[in-house]
């Protein structure tokens, strides 16, 4: 009992070939689009490389780029097959290639689905990576004279200004870190000495933030220092002041930005998956219909197209048997035939789980 059998007259076969040719070129464009999307996301992630601790999230754009390139190639092959499909002398040479093609194309669809899932699943890892990266950035903010860290200040300043955020979770992170370098501290001054003695590690901590935390929307000139002291500034209330600094933390801001980026690409990737699946199904129909027509006495007559020659269960059983035979062929010792059969069964079961629709022959 064939799966999803359909009748194809000569005219219908011609139309199917033409339509599939157009569809495969559309799929090539989609592949290029996926590649460009991957490149774009990669560039955006690399731009903020300094505040990320690990590169686990890069698996999303890497996969997108690989799949994009592979699908350009696969769909180009599909268009060549369509061109040859209505010529009975040139079609048979594509037989073996089509076997491989179906496997590759299905793998590409699965990978695209995996990318969509990963882009949601890796949010936690991204947040962790940003948390550690930002913490380091804030800690090394003052080290503008240490090689390897001298750009942290500029990086964090530009980040806070561009994403309109302050600190890791919020602006209070700056209170816990010495962000003013010792080179600019007057150690003879009483105020500096008091502050340094006031904590165990001898750090110069203050309730102030860098200028890059200032919010331009505030109606008053920015208050950076003595933030917790309501009396230090005229007409200032620490608890109720909202507009003076950016209230959002940079980790939140960056996570929102990257999640937004990857989510907005979700619908595009899903539609590309749909197009690719339709290319695969149409190619299968075309292959079976043309082979059926070639087997007929009158090549211009009507033939049948299907997705699977037998039902799904029977096709699986077929594969299992084939694999068994393959393994048995390798076995020389008849005594270990049972062990070999067991091994063959286990291997067949493993293959069943990863089985793709096989081509009929």
């Amino acid at each position: 009992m064939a799966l999803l059998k359909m009748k194809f007259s000569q005219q219908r076969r011609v139309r199917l070939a033409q339509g599939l040719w157009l569809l495969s070129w559309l799929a090539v464009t989609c592949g290029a689009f996926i590649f460009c999307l991957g490149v774009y996301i990669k560039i955006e992630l690399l731009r903020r490389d300094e505040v990320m601790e690990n590169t686990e999230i890069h698996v999303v754009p890497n996969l997108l780029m690989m799949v994009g390139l592979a699908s350009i190639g696969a769909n180009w092959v599909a268009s060549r097959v369509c061109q040859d499909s209505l010529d009975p002398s040139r079609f048979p040479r594509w037989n073996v290639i089509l076997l491989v093609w179906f496997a590759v194309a299905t793998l590409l669809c699965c990978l695209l689905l995996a990318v969509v899932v990963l882009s949601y699943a890796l949010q936690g890892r991204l947040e962790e990576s940003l948390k550690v990266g930002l913490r380091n950035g804030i800690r090394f903010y003052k080290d503008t004279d240490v090689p390897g860290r001298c750009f942290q200040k500029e990086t964090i300043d530009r980040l806070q200004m561009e994403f309109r955020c302050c600190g890791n979770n919020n602006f209070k992170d700056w209170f816990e870190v010495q962000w003013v370098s010792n080179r600019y501290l007057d150690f003879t001054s009483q105020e500096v000495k008091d502050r340094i003695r006031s904590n165990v590690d001898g750090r110069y901590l203050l309730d102030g933030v860098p200028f890059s935390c200032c919010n331009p929307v505030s109606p008053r000139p920015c208050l950076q220092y003595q933030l917790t002291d309501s009396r230090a500034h005229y007409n200032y209330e620490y608890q109720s002041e909202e507009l003076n600094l950016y209230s959002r933390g940079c980790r939140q801001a960056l996570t929102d930005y990257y999640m937004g980026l990857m989510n907005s690409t979700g619908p595009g990737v899903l539609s590309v998956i749909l197009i690719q699946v339709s290319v695969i199904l149409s190619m299968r129909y075309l292959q079976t219909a043309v082979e059926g027509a070639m087997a007929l006495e009158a090549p211009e007559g009507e033939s049948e197209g299907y997705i699977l020659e037998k039902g799904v269960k029977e096709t699986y059983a077929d594969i299992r048997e084939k694999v068994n035979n393959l393994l048995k062929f390798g076995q020389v010792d008849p005594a270990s035939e049972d062990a070999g059969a067991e091994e063959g069964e286990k291997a067949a079961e493993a293959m069943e789980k990863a089985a793709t629709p096989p081509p009929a022959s």
Partner: protein
Amino acid sequence: MVVMKMKFPFEKRVKLAQGLWLLSWCATVAGATTFTLGCLLKTELRRRAEVMDNSDVHIVPNTLMIVGLASLGINYFASKICQDALDAGRFPRWKNFLKPYFAVSSFFTVLMLLAVIMSYAMKGSLESSLKAGLRNGIRFYKDTDTPGRCFQKQNIDRLQMEFQCCGNNDFRDWFEVQWISNRYLDFSSKEVKDRIKSNVDGRYLVDGVPFSCCNPSSPRPCIQNRLTNNSAHYNYDYQTEELNIYLRGCREALLNYYMGLMNTIGAGVLSIFLLQGSVLVSLRFLQTAMEAVAGNENTEIETEGYLLEKGVKETAMEYLNPVLTFLLLKNQVQEGTSDEAAPAAP
């Protein structure tokens, strides 16, 4: 005396018509590009409209947009004409259309060139507009509670951060203006009272700048206040400090940005102007070559094509005479009556 006479055998005419058809479609795309460039420039100018005092410079993008649209029409007709050119039956219907067509096309092509020249010439006007606009912006920086001016602070802050500049000419412009609103000044404090008494207008002037002047590239945390006082900050020298705040003035920064934009656009429009000019010249040659064929039974004879039948001066007079007659119409009538009256008098 004919201007630029050239011989056109039949094959050359055919090649000219085909080449011109291709060229006119390229020129159509170029016309659309000109329109897009005009829109781009207009958008960029409007984004910073709050720091510009007048909109004189908008004439450049406006002209570009008009010319772009006009050239779409011009090149569309050019392609239609050269399609019909080799068909002796269909070409004559364009006869009356061509003279005004060339006049209008030349006018718009010259306008394109004028737009390029203007984009260089408007530099002074743009600079004075920016100067006045920025001066107002800095003056009204503190007025975040005055309707109509409440966004000046935000605009100036974002401008200084984006263009990496400070003040009008440089950061010292902030020393001459009270940029801290009276709402946030404690008038009972001695320091405030001293500062206000120290100048005639009773303004609170400081030798400090807003936070948006701070340069992130500086190795030390930003020093905004008491900039001229070396002893106020440890390890600080006012004269030699370069990286602390942006040294460039916003007028210069914006001017460089817009002139760079207009120069790039000007270069592109200049090449489009050359393309458009070549389309018109080729069309003129094709027209005159085909007109010479008209009437002959054998359409494959060699003909002559030219740009102008008479010299440049005579052709110009030919076009301008109707206009002049229209303008001098009253004078001619008066001359006529005075001539009639004069012989009658004696």
